[in-house]
């Protein structure tokens, strides 16, 4: 017997479990029954049967063009999305591309999003103590020289002088010796370090080289991950009611962050589907595509788009084990039919190449049959009907 968490009697469970409903709908039925007084087994049976009938009725029919329906169901609300790259300062003052540009970015499977970001969850004491959470922040956020102290150029002696701020160094857990060493490694100069003062200069006195060194010095990442320009720390309430520190980053380096101590590698995510694919595999990428497209629509109040449509899109994009874009360079461009490809974009190129290679179109799809004027193989178009009966003895049904 299946375990049911709801306060209903065994007979009711028996009639509900007997139906052809998926788990979630069964649970919904139990919930409804639980909330009502004086429900007899007959009532429960009637309700379960009604739900089942409705469920079977709303399933997709064989030969239904689900792709076309999905395209329309996402396309129509898509017309209501914001068209400009609207930066929305929602979560923790971090700019994130929203609306139509974001949706296009997702279905085009761009290598990097316009505004990459990560949501980093922390584990154990890192999530509850601000001090510990900050330790993780300094390991993620890229620290440049200007954050550590002042840089000045002494033109008379041809020297670059850095005066580091001791408090900042302590806070970010880096020593002046380390700073000096990183400078030597990156710029190939020898430095003189005394306390918090660091000095260095070009080998030959040259005004140009001196300025060049200062330029390069500013680009060095002393601590943290180069791609991450900013980290915002926020205290958030979790589903279980506890409060935790959560980090939001501008810029992303998903693989690197997962390795950092204190980062919860089971919940941390980023908005770059390719990074998710690389680090967590194709199934996680599919999950992320659904999640991201759904959130983009929900953000604009269009969350009544059925998630099944988005799931279909994600399934198609991940079907070959890698992320493919929708469109000429991806799924539409890899169709078997020449005519279907030619009808989509760059018509002449496709026809020319097909002619050169002697391609044959077997006219299986929709587009090519519309072009040649044949019924499409969908719905009633794929069903052959015959008059009368073929069974011997003529006992079959009469044609009408």
């Amino acid at each position, binding site marked *: 017997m299946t375990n049911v968490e709801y306060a209903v009697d065994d007979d009711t469970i028996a009639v509900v479990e007997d139906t052809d409903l*998926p*788990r*979630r709908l069964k649970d919904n039925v139990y919930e409804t029954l639980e909330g009502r007084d004086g429900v007899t087994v007959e009532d429960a049976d009637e309700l379960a049967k009604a739900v089942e009938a409705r469920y079977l009725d709303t399933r997709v029919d064989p030969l239904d063009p689900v792709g076309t329906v999905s395209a329309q169901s996402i396309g129509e609300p898509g017309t209501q999305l914001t068209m400009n790259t609207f930066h929305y300062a929602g979560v923790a003052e971090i700019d994130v591309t929203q609306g139509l540009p974001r949706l296009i970015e997702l279905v085009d499977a761009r290598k990097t999003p316009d505004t990459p970001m990560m949501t980093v969850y922390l584990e154990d004491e890192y999530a509850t103590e601000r001090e510990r959470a900050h330790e993780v922040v300094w390991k993620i956020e890229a620290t440049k020289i200007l954050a550590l102290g002042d840089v000045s150029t002494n033109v008379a002696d041809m020297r670059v002088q850095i005066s580091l701020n001791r408090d900042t160094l302590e806070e970010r857990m880096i020593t002046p010796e380390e700073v000096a060493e990183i400078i030597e490694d990156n710029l190939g100069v020898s430095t003189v370090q005394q306390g918090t003062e660091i000095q260095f200069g070009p080998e030959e006195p040259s005004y140009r080289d001196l300025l060049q060194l200062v330029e390069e010095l500013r680009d060095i990442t002393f601590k943290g991950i180069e791609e991450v320009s900013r980290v915002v720390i926020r205290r958030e309430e979790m589903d279980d009611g506890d409060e935790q520190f959560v980090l939001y980053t501008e810029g992303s380096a998903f693989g690197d962050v*997962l*390795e950092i101590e204190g980062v919860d*590698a*089971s*919940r941390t*995510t980023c908005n770059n589907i390719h990074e*998710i694919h*690389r*680090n*967590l*595999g*194709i*199934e*996680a990428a599919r*999950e*992320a595509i*659904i999640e991201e497209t759904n959130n983009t629509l929900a953000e604009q109040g269009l969350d009544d788009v059925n*998630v*099944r449509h988005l*799931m279909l899109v994600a*399934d198609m994009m*991940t*079907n*070959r*084990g*890698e992320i493919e874009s929708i469109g000429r360079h991806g799924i539409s461009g890899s169709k078997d039919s020449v005519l279907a490809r030619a009808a989509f974009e760059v018509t002449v190129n496709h026809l020319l190449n097909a002619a050169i290679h002697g391609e044959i179109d077997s006219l299986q799809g929709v587009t090519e049959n519309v072009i040649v004027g044949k019924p499409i193989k969908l719905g009633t178009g794929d069903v052959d009907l015959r008059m009368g009966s073929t069974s011997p003895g003529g006992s079959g049904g009469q044609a009408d």
Partner: protein
Amino acid sequence: MVDVSQHELVPDHSVLDEDTLEEVLEEYDIDRTDLPKIKRNDSALPDEAEIGDVIKIVRNSRTTDQAVVYRLVVE
């Protein structure tokens, strides 16, 4: 190294044995090459999986309780 399978975005992956595979292919009336694919270097792939194996994936579905899908290991 991070244990990828612990991430909440990653569903359960397991290698399907040949007998069960036959049943699955018969049920859907398809060849194994008709299945969706998964690359051999996929991070979530079990270590013992080889090219030509079929992976059973049990997703936490949004529309039903659990959804079982299959992917063929390629390349």
